[in-house]
């Protein structure tokens, strides 16, 4: 319990450090967001006035204190670009990204773990070679290109899926899922490759262990052996899977852009393009918190799978 509490405190410290670095980096951008809002033909005095009106000319420490103070109370502030309430924007876009990432994660686990196990059981067989080939392809194909190919195949070619956009579930389950299938595949395929190779390696290692050989010699059935093997082999897979879940939020930025999904990653990219300082800081901070939460969950799961760690 203390270990978990320690990790929680550590995560909060990391979150605070990230907030400081993030704030400093965003404010190191040499040009005011006013240039984006007011356009190419705005004068210097217009820019100065805009900065003053939005508090961008205040000392940086004061701006940071105001921002982090608000965030700690759940107030993410108001966009300097369009005056939108950012907590509302996050509330609207985070579920979209979360759903996409969870779907891609389920897809990745659902394909990668069986593939890794089968590869380990039939080491150096044709299925292992095939899985290895697929893994090399999975990690080599850029998700941007894969997304475009999926659109060309599934939307333009076959007409089974929309070319882009997100249909909320209120539009019906079919359209909703259709709008998420291709993006989830584009996002998840890289992690199928990563997780399947980790599973294969870990399962292979356990299969060669003495206790498994003894179990076989004692005549235990394949299913029972598989259960024992998985209990031992899944710990490193959980770590990789948790890290993958966190990284997926980063890759979602590209996938949401290609598939035109108005999620939080898409909002982050727009915020970067528009120099929307506050929105950039808020969204990145939320992503960091999600990444830390995924790692914390992995820690807990790790302890459940391996009771020696809890002791």
């Amino acid at each position, binding site marked *: 319990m203390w270990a978990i509490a320690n990790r929680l405190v550590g995560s909060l410290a990391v979150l605070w450090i990230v907030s400081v670095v993030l704030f400093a980096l965003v404010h190191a951008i*040499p*040009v*005011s967001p006013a*240039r*984006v*809002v*007011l*356009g*190419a*033909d*705005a*004068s*210097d005095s*217009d820019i100065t*006035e805009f900065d003053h009106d939005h508090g961008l000319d205040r000392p940086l420490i004061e701006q940071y204190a105001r921002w982090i103070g608000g965030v700690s109370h759940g107030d993410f502030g108001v966009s300097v*670009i*369009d*005056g*939108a309430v950012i907590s509302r*924007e996050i509330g609207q*876009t985070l579920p979209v990204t979360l759903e996409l990432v969870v779907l891609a994660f389920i897809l990745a686990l659902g394909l990668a773990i069986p593939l890794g196990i089968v590869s380990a059981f039939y080491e150096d067989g044709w299925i292992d070679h095939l899985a290895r080939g697929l893994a090399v392809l999975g990690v080599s194909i850029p998700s941007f290109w894969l997304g*475009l190919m999926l*659109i*060309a195949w599934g*939307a*333009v070619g*076959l*007409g*089974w*899926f*929309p*070319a*882009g*956009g*997100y249909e909320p579930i209120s539009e019906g*389950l*079919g*359209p909703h*899922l*259709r709008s998420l*299938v291709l993006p989830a595949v584009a996002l998840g395929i890289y992690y199928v490759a990563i997780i399947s190779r980790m599973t294969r390696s870990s399962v292979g290692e356990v299969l060669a262990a003495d206790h498994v050989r003894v179990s076989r010699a004692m005549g235990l059935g394949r299913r029972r052996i598989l259960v024992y093997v998985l209990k031992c082999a899944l710990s490193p897979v959980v770590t990789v899977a948790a890290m993958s879940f966190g990284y997926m939020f980063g890759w979602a930025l590209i996938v949401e*852009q*290609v*598939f*035109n999904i*108005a999620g939080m990653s*898409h*909002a982050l990219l*727009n915020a970067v*393009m*528009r*120099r929307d300082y506050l929105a950039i800081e808020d969204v990145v901070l939320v992503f960091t918190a999600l990444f830390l939460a995924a790692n914390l969950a992995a820690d807990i799961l790790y302890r459940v799978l391996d009771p020696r760690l809890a002791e």
Partner: protein
Amino acid sequence: MDLRRRTLLGAAAASAGAGLLDPRIALGADKTLTIALPNNPTTFDPIVTSNHDAMAISNLIFENLLDVDVNGDPVPSLAYKMPTISDDALTFTFDLRDDVAFQNGAKFSAEDVKYSYDYMLNPANKSIRRAQFAPIEEVVVESPTRVVFKMRQPFRPWLVYMTKFMGVFPKGSREAEGNAYFANTPIGVGTGAGIFVDWQKDSQITMKKNPNYWRKGVPAWDRLVAKIVPEDATRVAYLMTKQAQIISAPPPRDFQRLKTEPGIVAGSKVAVGGMWFMQINNKRPPFDDVNFRKAVACGVDRKKIAQDVFYGLMDASATPAATVTSYYNADADAAVSYNPEKARAYLAKSRYAAKPEFEMLVLSLPYLFDQRDAAVVIQSQLAAVGITMKITLMEQPQVLAHAMAGTQVASMMPLMGPSDPTFLIKINYTPGQIMSKATGYSNPALDAAITESYKYTDSKRLDPILKQIQSILVEDSPNVWLGFVVTANAWRSEVKDFKPNAGLTMEVRDVTFG
């Protein structure tokens, strides 16, 4: 019946798959027009908007006394005819339509016009377009259907500026609704064909037909959905899969192919207000030498770039005027157009013949179009005449900041203004303007010619002055002009009466369905 577990699972999977893989991608309901635009609006308020895609929407909500046709020429709108202009060009009298109502039901009158312009001109209201209308001295209401604008000096361009930078809203509406209302939810405060319904940030904007619109039978659509699709390839896929019926800015490499696709029409129009040029600093070496400037100008093969890099979606011009305009000066163009021999001769005469090199700032992310490939081609063309151009990629706001401070040597810049022929010339080559320091150039003869041009609206008297302005500029070559942006659109063949617009914005008011 033997319903085994596997059979049940199979049936469930099949029905789920059938639902999931329904090949019918939903089109909008009848009379819904769906368009795809590349950029996110930041506001719909006509007095502060600077985004061309936002104007495609805000121009449907807000109207003005005049509008521009697809060629960029002013035509009557809320004024039922073009204004009467006094002989001294200081008084513009507009007779207004008396059959116009705002979307909130209030009758439109001259009082609304005066209120709107007074509001925009009041410095306290922080309109970013106030400077463009500064010559307006006073707005006088003569009757409910007649309004008079009195000017401090002759100033023709404001007739075009109003079509892009201004809109008329009801008297008292700013105090009643507040500026945020105009920026985010401008329901009922325009006279236009579309009534604002909903704006899902970064995703889509929805509008509905104004049933009481004064142009009878317009619009033909009941609902307009503008989807924001920044990715070029995805926007094209939207068109191919019928998720959108009109898209703006298809990538040049796909444009010719789209023309041959069944069920798709593609068209283009030169945007006479969209100039692409090398904004070079005449105060800094090596561009403080006119011979070097002309060497660069003559070293660039614009037509080849227009064809090979932009696939024809660029109007190559060596002067600050599009070749499609009546005032284009072909002789001036010929003086500084591509001629490698001439370029080498100018270079030999320049003070920098021994070390002919400079740094060019190029936008790292596309604005209006992607110019990075073109920059590399220009680099190789200049190398062929002995000039070394170093390319530095930089984001647009930083390039603009450098340019406006006059700290850059050269930057490759697309600028988009109203279709008035002197707008970009004025802001770049006359003193006290926002881009004056970027070029560091001034010429009293040019100032006088621009001021003289402000007196005229008719092409017969105006064109010779505009040609003279080009001659003056080409003689001094303060910048290297490369061409004019071409507006391109692609649309489904069931969409009728749609034409690409020279003002760059997408005009969908008059679209009908086949």
